């Protein structure tokens, strides 16, 4: 599901990218100007330009990362599903990845320890992240 993506819906908007690049360029100009003004001796203006330059640069980078993050979050991830195979007679249990055609209570080939048939007893996905409790 997440292997391929539709270009029209997953790429970053060109309009947004253009704005980010312009702001980035302006921030660099502000930083260069800051250096120039500082060399001339106007330390206060240099300070202002430095602050403006850094803020603009930070904001542009943040917006760029945020939009990349949004594109990444658009991918649908298929969860890993596991199958529990169990021998009802000797109780040997094994867990393997789900295979197409598996279903709960499907009889599989004979158990390696005894002659009884193996049985699929559970199919589930494991969710790693814990739910937030919000302190209540």
């Amino acid at each position, binding site marked *: 599901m997440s292997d391929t993506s539709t270009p029209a819906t997953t790429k970053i908007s060109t309009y947004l990218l253009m704005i980010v690049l312009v702001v980035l360029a302006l921030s660099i100009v502000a930083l260069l100007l800051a250096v120039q003004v500082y060399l001339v001796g106007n330390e206060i203006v240099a300070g202002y330009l430095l602050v403006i330059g850094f803020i603009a640069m930070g904001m542009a980078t943040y917006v760029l990362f945020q939009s990349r993050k949004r594109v990444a979050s658009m991918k649908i991830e298929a969860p890993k599903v596991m199958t529990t195979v169990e021998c009802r007679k000797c109780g040997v249990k094994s867990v393997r990845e789900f295979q197409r055609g598996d279903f709960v*209570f499907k009889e599989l080939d004979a158990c390696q320890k005894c002659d009884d048939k193996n049985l699929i007893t559970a199919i*589930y996905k494991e969710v790693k992240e814990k739910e937030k409790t919000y302190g209540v």
Partner: protein
Amino acid sequence: MSVVPGSDAISQIISVVFYGVFIVFMFYGQRIQMYIMIREVEGSLYKLKYIKEEGRKIAIETIKEIGKPQTDPTARVDRYLEYFTITPQSMDPAGLVYKLDHILDVRDTRLKDEVKFMAPASDEIQVNNLENTLEAAMALNFIYKVVRHYYIQGKKTLSLYIIMQLQMILPLVMKEAEAYASALKAFAYGQPIGDGAGPLVVAKLMHGYETRKVPKDCVVATVPIEGRTAFIIKAEGPGGNVGKPGDAVKAVIAENEGKISSVIMIDAGLKLEGETVGEVAEGIGAAIGGPGVDQFKIEEAVVQYHIPIHAVIVKEDIGDAVSPMRKEIADSVDKVIERVKNVILERTKEGDKIIIVGVGNTIGIGQ
């Protein structure tokens, strides 16, 4: 000449900018707020479009893979995604349930036939799974179209209230769309989903006992539990199927001439935020969702013979219900069986006949 009070040029510029921003916000604040909301909705709409397209693609690929069609099924899938169902007129509500039941039956038959046309090489289980896959894709298509409709309408009319309403319900809509997206793969592969908690519990109870078919698309097994005779009902698996438990319960009650001492229903129940997934709760009433037809039939049958009806539910949210079954839900099976046995011991006598129904989609669960 200084425009605003202040000593240097910088503070004057800042003051002018401040006044400018103040004036702009005074006149255009609402419009700016609306544009921000529109951008937010637009982002979600792009995501919905992506999910919808992926759903369609998965459905087509699965049909090609399983059904081995002679011709390209794309056009037929696109037509399928646009199917709609018109619910019966409710001005005169008498007999409404049976009218709805008929409409749903016709819909089910029609959609199954369509799947058989699209995927001629598939067996009955695969037809059911493909139907479920297509229904999930259909739901995604519908969600996308509705959100797009309100988005365009809001943009056209520049109405803050249309956009605001859409933006407010969007997190819930997105959650549902994401749940359907993860359901697609589960349906395509035939994996059990969270909604299958009920069928899983009863499958464990009936496993090893002989089963027979009951109307419609259900199976029943006669199982001795705690000295009572239990008629255990579930939809026939392992294909994606919910059956019609209403008809099945009615049939079993009729077979026993109403001499049933209790009906116990097991289903997946929607949890509230803060509750734990897989939590088991007990109650009274017909635990069954859907359009209400089966609930009506079960209630009608138990009322006719004055049969007490109990419910045991496994709590989960909408996302868990339609995506591959979580371990917590699979692990809750034994807890549910324990609760059911408690109900049997406390509410019935030895030698009594009872009905236990596992309600839900039995995809990936045999019997």
